[in-house]
């Protein structure tokens, strides 16, 4: 048995256990050391992922190829950036307990397992490991009513989604007689026509995954949970878990159900259209910037899903690029939101950004870059993300998707530009000085967003290799 293949997961899991044990030792405030240890473990895991051989292990339950490498590196980057964002916030809010980074580490482990899942059971267990950690860190600020509410709401709806996933999986297993993706693909390929029960199972699984990426019509929890959870947790929710769930969705759609394209394509086209429209319209009236980002993330998932919905090689490549760009732009935006603090109190209103253009020009410039990138203004990274997706849709002949995508981009530009207008044209007082870790994240993601157009080639090549491995 080729167990050395799972070395990255093994190191991450053992690292988590060791760090947990170290955190329990009764010593004074070890939270900084624990944070650093978790960051280090994530980094080591990323190096191991880079050098991971390709292949299948554990009787086909686990797979490693260029696709998993691409997605895992993205997930680990999102998790590490999320932890960087949370460190200072947790200290200021009195939440600096060692369990937070440990839970973040275990959720990353769950995401890695999801990305490498090649079996319905692995998929489910990875998803549960991720979700359970997320439920807890959503409610991490347990003395805050809103945080507890966010955790509970996420938990109840997440449990419902898990139930749907399991029900759909059982129908698929009932049809194929195996939970392995390869065996399911064989069974689907050798059957004439499309068995009705199998399609019902597939739709249930898609619905559960759509819940995890908060695609319409399974988005209801997103604004409330994003608003209630502590801001760094929201930042984490909006990035890494979505990448992992998108990776899972892509593998399920392209792998075992590659033959049933017409079946899942309809579902994804509807989800994509709905998400783009709701993301654009829902965010317009929002005064709370975390709610605004929730709707924005729903919209972005709609654009990303467009890449998968066109069901072509270039489409999936554009999806991977879109997710990579989305992660870095989102992290940058949330770095600004986390830095929004006046007299030690965290702020969440859009109008609290007023006057930032004069009081903190650097941060205002960063926020402007991120907002313009999200709106899709060239030559920023977000423009290229949307460009590739729309190109894929047009090449596949899916004009409705492309036209709705362009229209909703134009609508959503309104609320992104409104944030910029508030920063530069409204009067306001200065925010508290921002900590160094946030400045570093801001600078890094800002530079990526601005200069992506100079070096898109390595990203394109990596995404191309990933798609080639996936479609094999």
């Amino acid at each position, binding site marked *: 048995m080729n167990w050395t293949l799972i070395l990255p997961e093994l190191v991450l899991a053992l690292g988590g256990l060791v760090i947990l044990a170290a955190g329990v030792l009764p010593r004074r405030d070890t939270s900084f050391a624990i944070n650093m240890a978790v960051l280090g473990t994530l980094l080591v895991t990323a190096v191991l992922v880079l050098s991971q051989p390709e292949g299948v292990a554990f009787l086909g339950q686990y797979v490693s190829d260029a696709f998993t490498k691409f997605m895992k590196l993205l997930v680990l980057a999102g998790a590490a950036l999320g932890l960087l964002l949370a460190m200072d916030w947790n200290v200021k809010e009195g939440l600096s307990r060692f369990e937070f980074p440990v839970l973040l580490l275990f959720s990353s482990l769950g995401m890695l397992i999801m990305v490498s899942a090649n079996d319905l059971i692995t998929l489910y267990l990875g998803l*549960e490991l991720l979700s359970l950690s997320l*439920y807890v860190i959503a409610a991490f600020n347990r003395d805050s009513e809103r945080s507890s509410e966010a955790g509970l709401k996420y938990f109840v709806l997440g449990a419902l989604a898990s139930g749907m996933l399991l029900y759909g999986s059982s129908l698929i297993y009932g*049809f194929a*007689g195996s939970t392995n993706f390869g065996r399911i693909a064989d069974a689907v390929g050798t059957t004439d026509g499309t*068995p009705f029960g199998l399609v019902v199972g597939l739709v249930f699984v898609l619905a559960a995954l759509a819940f995890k990426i908060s695609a319409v019509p399974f988005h209801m929890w997103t604004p409330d949970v994003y608003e209630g959870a502590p801001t760094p947790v929201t930042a984490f929710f909006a990035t890494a878990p979505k990448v992992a769930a998108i990776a899972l969705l892509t593998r399920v759609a392209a792998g075992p159900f590659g033959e049933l394209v017409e079946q899942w394509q309809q579902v994804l086209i509807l989800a994509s259209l709905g998400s783009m429209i709701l993301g654009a319209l829902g965010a317009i009236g929002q005064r709370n910037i975390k709610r605004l980002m929730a709707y924005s993330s729903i919209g972005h998932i709609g654009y990303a899903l467009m890449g998968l919905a066109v069901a072509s090689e270039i489409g999936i490549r554009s999806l991977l690029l879109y997710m990579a760009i989305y992660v870095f732009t989102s992290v940058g935006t949330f770095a600004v939101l986390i830095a929004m603090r006046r007299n030690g109190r965290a702020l969440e209103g859009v109008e609290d950004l007023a006057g930032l253009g004069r009081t903190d020009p650097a941060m205002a410039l960063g926020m402007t870059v991120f907002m313009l990138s999200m709106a899709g203004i060239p030559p920023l990274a977000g423009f290229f993300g949307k460009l590739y997706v729309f190109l894929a849709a047009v090449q596949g002949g899916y004009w409705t998707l492309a036209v709705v995508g362009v229209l909703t981009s134009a609508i959503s530009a309104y609320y992104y530009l409104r944030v910029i207008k508030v920063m530069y044209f409204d009067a306001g007082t200065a925010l508290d000085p921002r900590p160094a870790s946030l400045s570093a994240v801001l600078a890094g993601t800002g530079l990526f967003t601005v200069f992506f157009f100079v070096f898109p080639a390595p990203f394109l090549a990596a995404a191309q290799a990933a798609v080639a491995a996936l479609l094999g």
Partner: protein
Amino acid sequence: MIAALAFYVFAAILIASAVMVVTSRNPVHSVLFLILAFFNAAALFLMAGAEFLALILVIVYVGAVAVLFLFIVMMLDIDFVQLRQGLQRYAPIGAVIGAILFLELLFVFGSWQFAPDVAMLRLNAVPIDPALSNTEALGRLVYTDYILLFQIAGLILLVAMIGAIVLTLRDKPANSKRQDIAVQLARAEAVALTKVPARTGLDKLGIVRRKLPEPPKPKKVAHEAHGHGHHDQEEGGHH
């Protein structure tokens, strides 16, 4: 013949007790019926030749889970009448949704189709090596074939445990009394061993028993009254 009869008896009792779990007014009765249902399910497993599952069902579900249920039902003061208040109002819409779902499922399973190889798999009554015992076969599956999944499941339980502690444990050294063994041992000289002659009371030796404090007045919400009150008793009362 006898096997068939036994099957129908166990199955009938199982279904009847399952119905009683849902319909019984007293939650304690519900749990007891649940235990009965578990026993009958275990008997059905035994008849199917799955002796390991049958015993595990009794040990885990009856021994641990059902007893836990019983504890929870007795300790949490849930007003089940209040919980059922909306029943009549929401029953029609629930029935409609249920009926639609039922028809859909009927449609799904009515037109059920297996993959070509799976039809063969189904005809194979014993998929495992008959030379293996139940326990061995399951052990091979769980600890060899599915070791990865088994370990991930373990991690999920670990995360659940961390989560429960993170969200509920509060360290309040000022308000809680912990056992400090060193202090207790150091108090040995403060404890006087007195030989009390038979048929005399403590009073004759001049030891006055402390009056126990008044029990706390019952409050409206019963479970709030638990937990407190025990600390009020003086620690010296043991002597």
